[in-house]
């Protein structure tokens, strides 16, 4: 549960007054709370922990991290056990 994973914001919307979004983690798309990054925009990269974006990443750093996460199979490890993710 300690893992925080990098992903790209694909969509931002409000839900019950809270900023939410859809984030692509190396092909796995999940709903994420964006309330703690009020200035985030579609296309930007974030680090997500238990469904919450906790900080922004610049593109170059994010691409490098995402590649490492893919190589190590960490996205599957983080989301796979729930079996509830949607593939993009």
């Amino acid at each position, binding site marked *: *549960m*300690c893992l*925080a994973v990098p992903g790209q914001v694909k969509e931002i919307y409000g839900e019950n007054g*809270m900023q939410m979004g859809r984030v692509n983690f190396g092909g796995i798309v999940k709903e994420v709370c964006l*309330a703690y990054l009020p200035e985030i925009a579609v296309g930007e990269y974030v680090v997500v*922990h238990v*469904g*919450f974006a906790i*900080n922004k990443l610049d593109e170059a750093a994010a691409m490098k991290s995402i590649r490492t996460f893919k190589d*190590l199979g960490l996205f599957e490890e983080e989301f796979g056990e729930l079996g509830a993710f949607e593939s993009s």
Partner: protein
Amino acid sequence: MKYQEEFRNSGAVQRLLAEIRETVTRPWSLMEVCGGQTHSILRNGLDQLLPKEIRLIHGPGCPVCVTPLVAIDRALAIAARPGVIFCSFGDMLRVPGSDKDLFRIKSEGGDVRIVYSPLDAVKIARENPGREVVFFAIGFETTAPANAMAIEVARQQSIRNFSALVSHVLVPPAIEAILSSPATRVNAFLAAGHVCSVMGTWEYPPLAEKYHVPIVVTGFEPYDLLAGILACVRQLERGEARVENAYERAVSEQGNLPAQALLSRVFTTIDRAWRGIGVIPRSGWALSDAYRDFDAEHRFSVGGIVANESPLCHSGEVLQGLLKPNQCPAFGKQCTPRTPLGATMVSNEGACSAYYNYGRLIAAEELLCSAK
């Protein structure tokens, strides 16, 4: 394992390792605080790539491992009640309480559900207005903003059947407890990157100064860890003791201010007992008075439950870096991931489980002897 091989042979890794080798002149013990870092170190074999002068000590930063036994027993008591839906992060389900775990409660008919996000628990409460829904809110500063938001959403939307059993722990007081112990062997700390993403780095300079110890904010990927280790060794060799940020892409000095603002409203700082370690002053967060209506401990009157830890389990010494997991007499014998005596053997991020799963079955000293 193909990646591991490529990783070991990659130019960047070889360069970092060469620089560490060139810099180090004497033995140093570094503690990585975070269980996620412990996991990454063992998975990628970093402990075996580093020069022998550098000893990595695995710290208490696995939230599942340090959640006190009494909190688990309280969770079990609540989860066993008829009508309750008990929601938890998946890694908590196999953590042993005094006589069972959440999986056992589930197999005995309790409604125990794994959630990925704390907001999922709020959603379950909204969809089941006739049931009491309790979320087990554990974790370090990284997880606290998510848990705080779930509680805040329940308050704003008046979801009265939602409550949280809160047992949060904090990193800086744990670092201070380790440094102030006369038994400590730690020369420098790799501070947990994502804790600092939330909290920033401003809490650490007083510790670095008071105990004259380098504290380097470090990420979780193999290169990040080697970069953090190199920064620690450079400072140690020069006699410096500063806070340094080796994870700048994800950590700023101030941290995430909106998150810190909600945390200070929802939680209040308390003394917290850490499993295997004991009470560390001002090292935990509990719900503040304004959120008492959402406190499961209060709602289900489980505050009176007390617990005593197993004398067979040495996880406390492991968590403080006084004992390597494979130096514990029970390691791999009475205690395995299938039959864990303590939480450090349960969680993926627990040092004992990482040692078991990545084949560090013999203590390093014995390995050295057998190599001679």
